């Protein structure tokens, strides 16, 4: 079953690699992953859509990774999901009006064009993006670029100010002696 997970991950080299490697190594299907800065410096927030038979196991396995700070499954919670798509449509001048009409219907915007192409941008649910793309594909050959789903639960705790660990203040090795 497909689950929508939200993960807080330390921004360190290889951290994302570990998350992806774990999903691959455990034989889980990754549908999409979208990562960006969180409100906390040094911490990324990712939305991961993954196919797993045991989401509880998957979350525990992810939590074993040192850089993973927190994983939440929002699949059965109240949450919003949005995705952005850029669609480049190869269409000659006479068909541009058609594209404009479709874009208006879907609340999409034309964000660029060249003599041969038009680029449309749309942010909505993944399903609505799919509908829009199907429509413009009927107009001309398309190249699509999708961001992957971004999910956010409606409720939840107040964000933490920073990610300092409980023992961060512990001084290390200060008692070590005999080493000159």
């Amino acid at each position, binding site marked *: 079953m497909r689950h929508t997970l939200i993960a807080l991950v330390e921004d360190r080299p290889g951290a994302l690699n570990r998350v992806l490697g774990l999903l691959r190594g455990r034989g889980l299907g990754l549908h999409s992953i979208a990562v960006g800065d969180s409100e906390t410096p040094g911490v990324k927030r990712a939305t991961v859509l993954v196919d797993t038979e045991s989401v509880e196991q998957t979350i525990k396995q992810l939590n074993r990774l040192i850089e993973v700070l927190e994983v939440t499954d929002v699949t059965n919670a109240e949450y919003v999901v949005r995705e952005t798509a850029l669609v480049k449509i190869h269409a000659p001048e006479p068909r541009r009006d058609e594209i404009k009409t479709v874009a208006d219907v879907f609340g999409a915007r034309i964000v660029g064009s060249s003599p041969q192409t038009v680029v449309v941008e749309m942010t909505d649910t993944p399903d609505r993006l799919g509908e829009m793309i199907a429509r413009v594909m009927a107009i001309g050959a398309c190249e699509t670029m999708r961001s992957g789903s971004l999910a956010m639960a409606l409720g939840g705790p107040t964000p933490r100010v920073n990610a300092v660990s409980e023992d*961060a203040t512990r*001084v*290390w090795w200060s008692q070590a002696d005999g*080493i000159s």
Partner: protein
Amino acid sequence: MTDERTGAQVMCEALMREDVEVMFGIPGGAIMPFYHAMWEYRDRLRHVLCRHEQGAGHAAEGYARSTGKPGVCVATSGPGATNLVTPIANAWMDSTPLVAITGQVSSAVLGKDAFQETDITGITLPITKHNYRVSRAEDLPSVFREAFHIARTGRPGPVLIDVTKDAQQARLVPDWNVTLNVPGFSAPVGLDPRAIREAARILAGASKPLILAGQGVIISDAVAELRTLAERTGIPVVTTLHGIGAFPEDHPLSIGMPGMHGWVHVNRAIQDCDVLLCIGARFDDRVTGKASTFAPRASVIHIDIDPSEIGKNVKVAVAIIGDARAALRALIELIPPRDAAIWLRNIRETQATHQHRQPYLRRPDTTELMPHDVYAALNAALNKRGGYRVITDVGQHQMWAAQLIEWRRPRTHITSGGAGTMGFAVPAAMGAAIAHPDETIWAIVGDGGFQMTNQELATIGQEGIKNVKVAIVNNGYLGMVRQWQQLFEGRRYSGTPLTGPSFAGLAEAYGLRGFTVDRIEDAEEAIRAAWDHDGSVVLDFRVEREANVFPLVPPGLSIGEMITREAPA
């Protein structure tokens, strides 16, 4: 010495601050600055030059498993590092605290396919608790601190530190006042009192309770607590392969090992029990057989420090996440004294009808030296003399050792379990021998596994290690595979017959003593002579070639379905 150090000196001092006394390794280009610095600290930081990095890694594991402290191995970049992959994977599967230090090519050429460059942090990603690539010498103090903390805290495991050559060479004034900041790594603190109460309630109401004790009991030093709990409640105790030694097998409540080569009465008890208290074991498929049919009548109480083990293979009624020792102490407080005498008597009756221990091996139609004879002699010597540890390899000899020796103390039985790494025993025995120079360290190994890493006999010779005694159970086959071919594949012995040199002669060539034993009446004397010899010894026991390990649960079946003896020919 001024306050200024090289990165390599900082690495040495960091190891000393972590109480490291010995490391096992092989130098090479990218790790040379570390070796250069090591020379200055050689009176406090011993380096053991191994003959292959796999040997170095297993030696560090043997050191770690016999002491409980992290073992340290060292290799250069490229092939040196990749040769460590097998021991790192082995340590990962068996929860062994291991810190692997590898050299890496200089930052300036990193990513350019430089000579002996390999992305070892990428390669070891799925088999380490964590790994680091350090290219700034300033990071070395905190990285080493974190690495050791992670390796030994919670569920132990391997951590790799890959240090570029320029970071080893850089000069710096190290700042040792490092704060440990690993917010994503939190060992469970405190136990859930509701879970403890619920577990105590279920245990108190059980009529056929059973304890399944794993390595977690040994790692968390909970052997005394386990004994107290068992004696207070009269609950029989099963010990997994890695749990061997967590509960003395000469104790009236000990019933033995479960699983694929466990005893009939143990597997039946698991299938019959109504409450199964699992402590620090992870329900490996070699224990459970077909997991969906495992312990079908039991409410399972699972104590484990790793939350991801809960409910992974077996459905759990109560999960107690935390340190086994703390959990057992809390349980002991709450559980009223009881007994399970009738239940235990039932188990013992099953045991009596299934010819426990020896007869499985004795084929009536041969007078050849049987594996059984070797183990009988070893068992007698070990339990008479004490002061031993036994390292086993992987295969038939490993299962016979688990079955036929009466184990009594923790950390005296060390083996490669989860990964099943042939070649583990000889180097791991070397590591344990260095950690415990006053004890006699037996490596029990097959002729297949012995030939995978026997080059470490040269290391044993060079280091003057006198307390390694290798017992090769030599049947001229990769015996466990041959046994499966015999039982399940119509005796097609494809790729399993195996020759070798004279192993006694090989030992002598390495400067050790070697003896060949092929008669029943010589086994005991050979073991005595090896034990008393003031130096390391190889005993080559030429045993009957087609002896099998019984009982046996065929792969994929329930542990209730066991083959207990040879089918009539």
